[in-house]
């Protein structure tokens, strides 16, 4: 046997306080002579006879060395000028947020099941819910969902439950392709049919096709700004989809600082990705999905909800409420299977929205608009470069050159520019297109250099 003796001081570990003497005292109280005796219910034939074949234990020094070595092999926005968006954006991250997230009381608490000792988390969620309502123009927001893609899945499932006998959902083809793929995964055994509606020359949803697709459908989902960066006309979409449950999808949350809120245009549900609210891109997660609905849908909501009440002394306080919707009570008939959510990221979003506030949210969005418009104008002057969609954009646009997107982007990478996201892998026939995102973090110099580098890259390819 090569297995170590747990009472041997050499076996002690910095994260596990009890050691030699403690163990012997505790075994005495339990009335057994070894820790192994406590594992007798695990049959011998499934017990490991040796240690797992894994590295470690490492000191912090060794961990830093190895993990930093890996991180150094990435080329990222940390050492390049990045124009990457496509559902994950680099915005200003106020220093306050990360410092506060490291507070033990937020970081190392669990779901606030016991409200008397969790008012900090509960009140923050209540505030977060309020921000979501103000931004989207809808009535009731939940405590968070995993991310934008799964939030859309939950919205589709919610909408289907509302209408008996209809099982068709209309989805704009210009919704983030990963979101569409995730919806297909979620609904694969639930008898829901998906009809996708494409876009017109301006990059907006094809309204004629949309109107035709609504027949027999229970709901419709449209993303704005869509995956092509184009801002949809909510009013026109609403008119084309009378009688359906309307879902608005937001993949760039800062756009809510300037775009009309979906609740103003007859949308019933707004779902989206809150990463743009000051959360680092961190290779895709953790992010925070949000969902806001009309008042009438609140009892159909997936996920946790925090409500206001009073304690026995009449003091205002907050508590998880309307819990009978959830899996721990309704089990197989719950509105969702979600339990763990993205609470800490929702807290970060609450801090971001509070710091930026009424003016800051508007200013971020205005800067995105202005800087994108500036770059768009610059790009229009580049020979052989085309901007295929002429609809209004927020902070992202599609660029087309006569050459494969990957070729042009490789050239830009040599200039320390992460120049965009190729569209070809997502949509056939767009092999020469890529998505370019601009935020308030870009300087005028960044934008000028980008246009110049792109122009040079095209010239080099022409030769």
């Amino acid at each position, binding site marked *: 046997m090569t297995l170590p003796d747990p009472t041997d001081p050499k076996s002690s570990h910095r994260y596990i306080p009890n050691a030699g003497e403690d163990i012997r005292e505790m075994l005495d109280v339990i009335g057994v002579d070894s820790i192994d005796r406590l594992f007798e219910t695990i049959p011998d034939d499934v017990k*490991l006879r040796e240690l797992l074949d894994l590295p470690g234990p490492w000191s912090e020094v060794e961990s830093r060395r190895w993990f930093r070595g890996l991180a150094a092999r990435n080329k990222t926005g940390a050492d390049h000028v990045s124009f990457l968006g496509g559902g994950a954006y680099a915005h200003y991250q106020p220093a306050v947020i990360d410092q506060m997230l490291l507070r033990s009381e937020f970081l190392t608490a669990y779901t606030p099941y016991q409200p008397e000792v969790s008012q900090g988390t509960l009140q923050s969620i209540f505030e977060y819910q309020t921000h979501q309502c103000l931004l989207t123009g809808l009535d009731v927001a939940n405590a968070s969902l995993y991310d934008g893609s799964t939030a859309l899945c939950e919205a589709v499932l919610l909408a289907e439950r509302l209408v008996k006998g209809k099982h068709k959902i209309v989805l704009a083809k210009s919704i983030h392709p990963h979101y569409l793929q995730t919806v297909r995964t979620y609904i694969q055994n639930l008898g829901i049919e998906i009809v996708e509606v494409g876009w017109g020359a301006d990059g907006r949803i094809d309204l004629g096709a949309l109107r035709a697709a609504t027949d027999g459908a229970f709901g419709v989902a449209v993303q704005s700004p869509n995956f092509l960066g184009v801002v949809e006309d909510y009013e026109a979409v609403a008119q084309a989809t009378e009688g359906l449950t309307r879902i608005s999808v937001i993949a760039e949350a800062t756009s809510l*600082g300037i775009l009309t809120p979906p609740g103003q245009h007859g949308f019933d549900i707004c779902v989206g990705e809150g990463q743009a609210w000051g959360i680092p891109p961190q290779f895709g997660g953790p992010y925070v999905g949000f969902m806001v609905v009309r008042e009438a849908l609140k009892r159909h909501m997936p996920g946790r909800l925090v409500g206001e009440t009073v304690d026995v002394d009449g003091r205002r306080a907050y508590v998880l*409420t*309307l819990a009978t919707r959830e899996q721990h009570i309704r089990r197989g008939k719950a509105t969702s299977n979600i339990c763990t959510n993205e609470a800490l990221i929702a807290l970060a979003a609450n801090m971001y929205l509070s710091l930026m506030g009424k003016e800051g949210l508007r200013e971020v969005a205005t800067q995105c608009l202005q800087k994108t418009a500036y770059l768009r104008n610059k790009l229009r002057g580049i020979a052989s470069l085309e901007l295929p969609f002429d609809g*209004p954009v927020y902070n992202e646009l599609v660029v087309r050159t006569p050459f494969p997107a990957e070729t042009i982007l490789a050239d830009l990478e040599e200039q320390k520019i992460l120049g965009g996201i190729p569209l070809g892998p997502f949509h056939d026939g767009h092999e020469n297109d890529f998505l370019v995102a601009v935020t308030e973090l870009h300087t005028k110099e960044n934008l000028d250099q980008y246009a110049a580098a792109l122009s040079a890259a095209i010239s080099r390819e022409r030769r």
Partner: protein
Amino acid sequence: MTEEQTQQKTALEPLIFERSKSGRRGYQLPDLEVPEQDLDAILPAGLRRSEIQDEVEVSEVDVIRHFTRLSKLNVSIDAGLYPLGSCTMKHNPRINEEIARTPGFAQSHPLQAEHQVQGNLELLWTLEQTLKEIFGLPRVTLQPVAGAHGELTGILMVHKALSKSGNARKYILIPDSAHGTNPASAAFAGYEIRELKSNSRGTVDLSTLEAAVTEDVAALMITVPNTLGVFESEIKAMADILHAKGAYLYCDGANLNSFVGIARPGDMGIDVIHSNLHKTFSTPHGGGGPGAGPVGVSESLIPYLPTPTVEKREDGTFYLDYSHPDSIGRMRAFNGNFNVLVRALTYMRSMGPTGLRRIAQMAVLNANYIRARLKKHYHLPYDAPSLHEVVFSDKLQTPKDVHTLDIAKRLMDFGFHPPTIYFPLIVSGALMIEPTESEPKEELDAFCDAMIAIAHESQERPELVRSAPHTTPVRRLDEARAARQPVLRWKP
């Protein structure tokens, strides 16, 4: 004074919206620099909103104070024992936080070209190898971002595999002691639920299982050890019964903390397991999330894994592989909760093989120590040997009209977060205690002393217990009021 003002006066901390004052600001952005264009020329007025009505105006100082004060209203694992059964509230090492914040990880974008993110891909690949060794299973997907998300992933794979062989079947079997997410996930994967009754040990009898596994059954979803902390000693025989009928064995790995490094799910005949990295592998719970719920599978389920998978080429480079025609598809945008995965791998390396085994040993020792110290004072509804958690009930206290909820609330006055209560459902008035390996003996003793004191109080001064807590920032809440007239947002 109006009624509203009275409320504000008694609030512990005003809402951030109530701190708002016109003209305050909490941010400064860099200069616009580019020439400003007429907004109407960029974005038609009909697409623009007016000001965000009622949004806050506060300074950075206001924000720091507000959230610092809010934080003080929480208890946390850093402050002391947090023995929520099934939740595995263990120490969250800070090196994990530091490494997750490395700019090369934090600023990497999810849609970057593979050659730009070789570091990330190697990390994901390495984590998969590590989990494969821990599970004893040949492949693991890292996409699921929570336990329930992993359950859905796993059952969708079972459904797809069975569909491929001609019949997806109708039912998932779930013991009555299971977490609520199990039936919910199975339902969203397209199945109906059949509940299995537990026996007097709290486990599932082989004969019960044998009778329940019809040709219509797709899988058994079972938590190992179960929610009473009792290991299903006949797990291999259970797997045989299921496999003989062409059904799968799904393991809810929420309780992996009790046997990591001691035994491996793959060696027990388990076909598919999820592990909550925020439990066994120490990523912080953050007030309810984020988490991660990787899923390990046996050979026969590999073709159905979510796409993309992370693969290593012979030249040592890494890539994302989308070429799995039978895949269930994508479970989420991008690459899962990457920066939770970074933390978990850091932890696995900090522990090493000796540390991982020690986790289970000391978690089980701690739970059995509590069990030994409290069993004279609290009713033990199932006395089968338990591993990492122990479930008591309020049966000895109810004659004095003291219930589990009262005991839980009273514990707060002693400075402890209560255990999980009223779960599992098969125990009336359950108190489910999971100390984890993080607790020193002194802390366990203080907790047991508090529990024993409450047991005495329940006999001698039951009213004191029934009216607890007495020392917390707020006292018991009117939860019926919250649900009857829901107020779910602030309004001016």
